């Protein structure tokens, strides 16, 4: 318990000191995780729609593969991306390794299966009459998808929130592809890992509390907008 309070007070101190380095780290974490979630959402939700909406041979195989990809370890993603974007890799010339963009690439790969699989699950229980009704009222495929999306919003937002939670708390990819370079690619989690490496457990958990607070803030905002939207 002591340990927890120590961490809590460290977190408060960090926040109240408005430590400029902390601000940079928090900013980067947020920017990277939000971008990854956004990109993965823009890719994964439509993908989920295409798979969920259509019946085709091998649909169950595709879903099984997606479920398998949910177990894609960060080390594998990190290394695969690494081999592509490292100097010797196919995309070496782009100089992506150890930049925030590299983290984003890795994280997008990490959560696309999450968002896609959960989108399919969210769609599975949306009454087919919504789709039919939209179509008969004159909606095209895309507009129909929007209608169904609206009805499935709770599930899809849950998917996005889960994906965001996954990336903002993720360490492996940020470490391997970002490199935890101070001032460049240090994120909340890599900073935590570093403090943990140094044995500064209190500070590590303190940073964790700051991270959870930020996540709480994001979710409260989201809840607020969902509430307004639902009206």
């Amino acid at each position, binding site marked *: 318990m002591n340990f927890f309070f*120590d961490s809590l007070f460290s977190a408060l101190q960090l926040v109240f000191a408005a430590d400029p380095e902390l601000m940079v780290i928090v900013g980067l974490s947020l920017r990277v995780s939000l971008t990854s979630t956004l990109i993965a959402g823009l890719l994964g939700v439509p993908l989920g729609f295409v798979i969920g909406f259509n019946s085709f041979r091998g649909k169950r195989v595709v879903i099984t593969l997606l479920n398998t990809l949910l177990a894609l370890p960060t080390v594998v993603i990190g290394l695969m991306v690494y081999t592509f974007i*490292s*100097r*010797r890799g196919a995309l*070496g010339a782009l100089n992506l*390794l*150890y930049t925030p963009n590299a983290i984003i690439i890795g994280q997008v790969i990490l959560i696309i299966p999450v968002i896609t699989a959960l989108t399919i699950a969210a769609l599975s229980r949306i009454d087919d009459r919504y789709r039919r009704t939209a179509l008969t009222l004159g909606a095209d495929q895309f507009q129909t998808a929007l209608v169904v999306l609206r009805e499935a919003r709770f599930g899809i937002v849950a998917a996005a929130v889960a994906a965001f939670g996954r990336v903002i708390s993720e360490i492996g990819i940020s*470490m391997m592809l970002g*490199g*935890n*370079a*101070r*001032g*460049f690619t240090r994120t909340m989690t890599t900073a935590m890992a*570093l403090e*943990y*490496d*140094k*044995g*500064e*457990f*209190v500070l590590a958990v303190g940073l964790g509390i700051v991270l959870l607070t930020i996540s709480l803030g994001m979710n409260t905002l989201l809840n607020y907008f969902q509430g307004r939207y639902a009206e």
Partner: protein
Amino acid sequence: PADDHVLTMSTTTSTQASGLLDILLPAFTEDTGITVKVIAKGTGAAIRDGMDGNVDVIFVHAKGREEQFVAEGYGTKRYAIMHNDFVILGSEADPAGIKGQGDAVAALKAIAAQKALFISRGDDSGTHTKEQQLWQDTGLLLETTTQTIVKKGKNTDIQFVYPGGLGEWYMSIGQGMGKALTFADEKQAYVMSDRGTYIKYKVGRKEGLDLVVLCEGDARLANPYGVIPVNPAKFPQVKIKQAEAFAEWLVSEKGQGLIANYRLLGQPLFYPDAIPAAK
């Protein structure tokens, strides 16, 4: 900072975790205007980063492998920067009775004879490499496991050497120094550590460690650190000028002085090698 004022360096976690870089780098930046982007990871991965051309310079402690790195043309030259030393730690109870033992090999033999719990990092790091050497020097019967993997289309063996008793009294945990210390502390076991990390964990934090130094001072326990700029002949984009500037600066009076004076709670962590008398 503009692109050619940024130098990318991969290093082992120990240099970063010890806090030394937090002293050195700002001073270097002030002197030269060059910012150093530090990528800290395990020794193997750090050297690997250099071999893949992802960084401009590496700063590690695994002398044999560093020399091989230069020999294979990945690096231009090894700059000997500093050393600290390894110590063998254990609980106050010291079941193997190695307290005050000046001979590291004898200490390990005693531990093995007692089958007293020993924590090995087991991660192919500089420390682990050193530990494996010492075990070899004991002349005990060592065991080897071999894994075959494919590299560049060819089968390659990976070997792992350890004294008998793996899992009985010899624990190989495949983690960094700090974690090995925590592990040993938890199990009140013996462990070999670099002095810097030990001091940092023992006195640098509130949680502390219940481990004490039992064996130190053996010449075989020295732990040298080197800096190697990556060879621009292999990777043309390497910022060789800046990398050399960094290496030169580290072996300069200024850099060596900072290293000599870096103390944690009054204890020195590193000893400069280029100018041993630096102040």
